[in-house]
């Protein structure tokens, strides 16, 4: 049951997007997310949406998976849409009841915001769909490496992230096992009020803590045995190399960003 979750929701594939340098993917995702906020008219937003659609096609990630990533935020989208409809006023009034006024501007803003949130989520989940958690942390390590000037141990941080990702499924299994063991001894974990239930979780989390420390100790042992001494003098099997496709993607994104500003200039701003 809970052990079935996939970490970082990576979708195995070998598409153009999968093969791109994770650093470039990370940077471009960041750029796009920032510039989605620069969109002011429906046309510039449509440009980003089109680009995202093309990117989805190139990623070989099925549309169903993409939709699944939007599912958890549907409520947030609806909520902001409703708020926007009610509280933004301007332009033609379609409907009025007491102090509630639905106007053209309100509806436009609601749609605009909804599309914007969806785009943000789809763009960033496209990154996690096409990049393994390992290469993502690798990319972050390399992108942050200039910070080592300030004596920040970037490698150690990245290693901690990798290990955390690695142990999530292991610890979930462990929780499952401990909960079953406690249930077998008559613990009632699924009944009672909030306080009773939280109290019932104490005997689950204490063994979990203890076993986590034991695991950490053994892992440290195993890492020492494999000659791990920190980031210095380490090489990497997977070299990251920027290729033609990465620069192609970069130029496309720059073109999209330029397009955003051009369209903003020529068309009426919604917000």
């Amino acid at each position, binding site marked *: 049951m809970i*052990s079935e979750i996939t*970490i970082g929701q990576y979708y*195995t594939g070998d598409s153009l997007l999968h093969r791109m340098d994770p650093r470039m993917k990370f940077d471009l995702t960041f750029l796009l997310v920032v510039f989605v906020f620069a969109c002011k008219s429906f046309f510039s937003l449509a440009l980003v949406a089109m680009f995202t659609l093309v990117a989805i096609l190139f990623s070989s990630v099925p549309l169903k998976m993409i939709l699944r990533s939007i599912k958890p935020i549907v409520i947030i989208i609806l909520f902001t849409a409703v708020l926007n409809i009610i509280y933004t006023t301007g332009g033609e009034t379609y409907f009025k009841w007491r102090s509630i006024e639905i106007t053209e501007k309100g509806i436009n803003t609601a749609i605009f915001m909804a599309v914007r949130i969806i785009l943000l989520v789809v763009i960033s989940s496209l990154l996690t769909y096409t990049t*393994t*958690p*390992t290469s993502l942390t690798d990319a972050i390590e390399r992108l942050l490496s200039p910070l080592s000037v300030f004596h920040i141990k970037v490698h150690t941080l990245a290693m901690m992230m*990798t*290990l955390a*990702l*690695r142990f999530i*499924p*292991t610890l979930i*299994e462990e929780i499952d096992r401990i909960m079953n063991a406690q249930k077998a001894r008559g613990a009632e974990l699924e009944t009672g009020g909030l306080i009773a239930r939280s109290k019932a979780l104490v005997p689950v989390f204490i063994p979990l803590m203890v076993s986590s420390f034991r*695991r950490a100790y*053994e*892992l440290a*042992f*195993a*890492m*020492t*045995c*494999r*000659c*791990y*001494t920190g980031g210095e*003098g*380490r*090489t*990497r*099997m*997977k*070299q990251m190399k920027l290729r033609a496709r990465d620069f192609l993607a970069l130029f496309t994104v720059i073109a999209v960003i330029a397009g955003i500003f051009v369209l903003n200039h020529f068309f009426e701003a919604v917000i």
Partner: protein
Amino acid sequence: MSEKLIEFRNVTYIYETDEEDEAPSVPALDGVNLTVSKGEFLCVLGHNGSGKSTLAKMCNAILEPTDGEVIVAGMSTKEEENGDLIRRKVGMVFQNPDNQIVATIVEDDVAFGPENLGVEPSEIRRRVDEALKAVNMYDLRLRQPHNLSGGQKQRVAIAGVLAMQTEVIVLDEPTAMLDPVGRQEVLSTIHKLNKELGITVIMVTHFMEEAVDADRVIVMNAGRIVLDGTPREVFSNTAAVKSCGLDVPQSTELCSRLGVKRTVLTAQEAVEEIIKLCGGVV
């Protein structure tokens, strides 16, 4: 088979205990002398607390002897700066496969050791592929470790050591947490590495059946080596083995109770002897 690789010289080890613990600490190892030669397949048997795991951890400078000396390829494990050099020669596989896998992808985990050694990226790739093929896990190289069976995880751990190209692999009860299928997979992998690649193997176990195919078996009890010899020599001494709280393999037990003179080790040999007892008629 004559080159000395690991040598224990009168090694004693006492675990440090809490100060309020007034009971005098019993040494985990007590004056152990042992020489392991290159290419040997050594099996260390003993019941819980006999010091067999301690012995394993001494082989790659994870633990330092309280008294005496452990020499690995001419280097004493007592010298701090030798630690890393020794661990380049002696790799280790632990009991719980979950607690020794570092990366979220199989091949990344195998690459972890050589990456730490600072090997060239193209060479790491070659070693990783080779190691994964040697343990028969190449097809699963892109999988996530938590989706693998115990036996598969343990083979990934072995590949991780192989990719470091150590001369010795020390395995501390590598099959204790596995099901029979996984156990068989891991055992045949270990034997293959010993025979085909000439890697020296030191395997700690408490399964007697696993010791049958070793070149040499030592039996430990209360921190001392009590028996040392080929599996046949060791298991022929049923009384001594049993006095250490261990059993001889089932086939051996059966045949000795049937009054067979020869020390039988495997089920196949047992079948032969029983057929002989029946006068060749089945």
